[in-house]
């Protein structure tokens, strides 16, 4: 193994969890997420000489996100997937989201599954900022880099995303309470 490969593996592979987590939440499909991450890691490898130190995670996640957008564009052109947007009323069946990863599936509560679905149904641009901020703990500046928008946009999207998630989750909780009666 040459030095470049060794350095790449040491720096990039520890962030594979972050890459797959983002990809799964973006694609809402395990198989698609795997393809996106593999594509992203290969692009990262080819572009590795251009990476000039600093925190590699935002750099890697930006590549993951770009690969996801490219793959979505391909599908859209081939007419494979109806893309959810803000005006689409999604039902659970329309989502290809395939549930929790194997290691957490053993004792996965109904509650958790419902929450995952509520998050999966958020529009892409709101879902991604939430995942990057709350699950990956990225700063506003890093999220702006990954999503390629100004910091101000990151802030307003985050605010809306939080309000949306809370509202939809509370709706879910209330519905459950009604059903229980």
């Amino acid at each position, binding site marked *: *193994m*040459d030095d470049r*490969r*060794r*350095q*790449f*593996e*040491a*720096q990039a*592979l*520890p962030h*594979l*969890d972050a*890459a*797959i*987590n983002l990809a*799964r*939440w973006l694609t809402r499909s395990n198989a698609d*997420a*795997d393809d996106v*991450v*593999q594509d992203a*890691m*290969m692009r990262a*490898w*080819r572009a590795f000489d251009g990476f000039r130190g600093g925190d590699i995670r935002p750099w890697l996640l930006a590549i993951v996100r770009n690969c996801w957008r490219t793959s979505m564009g391909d599908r859209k052109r081939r007419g494979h997937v109806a893309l959810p947007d803000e005006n689409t009323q999604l039902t659970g069946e329309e989502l290809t989201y395939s549930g*929790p*990863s*194997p*290691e*957490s599936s*053993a004792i*996965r509560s109904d*509650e*958790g599954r419902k*929450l*995952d679905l509520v*998050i999966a149904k958020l529009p892409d641009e709101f879902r991604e900022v*939430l*995942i990057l*901020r*709350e*699950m990956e703990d990225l*700063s*506003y500046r890093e999220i702006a880099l990954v999503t390629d928008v100004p910091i101000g946009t990151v*802030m*307003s999207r*985050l*605010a809306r995303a*939080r*309000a949306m*998630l*809370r509202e939809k*989750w509370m709706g879910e909780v209330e519905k459950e309470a009604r059903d229980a009666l």
Partner: protein
Amino acid sequence: MPCERAQTTQAYLDGELDAAAALEHESHIQSCAECTALREEFETVRKLLRDEATYHRADARLRARIRTALDKETKGSNILPFIPRARAVWTGVASGAAASALAASLAFFLLMPAEGDPLISDITDAHLRSIASEHLIDVESTDRHTVKPWLATHADLSPPVADFSKQGFKLIGGRVDFLEGQRAAVTVYRHGAHIVNVFAWADYDEQLPDFATRNGYHIVFWKSGNLTFCAISDTAVDDILILSRLLKGLSQTDARE
């Protein structure tokens, strides 16, 4: 009506304000009903996403897929093209004299023809690295009540930990390591002059042998609950088996608790 300082409140909660601005803003929130409600919303959403939503992790199959793809990419440009797979994952902690010793031992491993399970090579490399460098222990303690929670926080895994000094295995600490790029919790024991590293990682139904010997290091594998364990040392294999039996017993006790 939303407060006109709502965006600053969010930035404050996200830790984006400097200390002085944060202090000033905290008193604003306390006197503003809208911002207090915003804080509650923020905390609810944070808890949902951090504690209850699924955090997806890469499985062994994906890791293998990526390594295979990398192998294909590096074919032809590799300095040592006859080596089929990349093994050692450097953690970048070695320095100075330790690094030279490490480089020497690593070169030795790289020149060895690859054989058997790549995981065994990874474990042997990780063990060597831990001994040759100063990165043997991240948390130094003989107290299981220190080591166990530390591993739970840093490796996201909670293997059984105990001090077995009476049986000849003194607990000296724990660390986080990477096996094939995947996080593993390591508990470190001292047995006489020997170091025993006990790796634990989330089980992915790997087919593993019970024992292996590589370059004079004995390796013992076992599974317990949803974790795979591996103890490695240059001490006698019987001694490693004693420790593995003690830990298996502890897993059962932990599970009953």
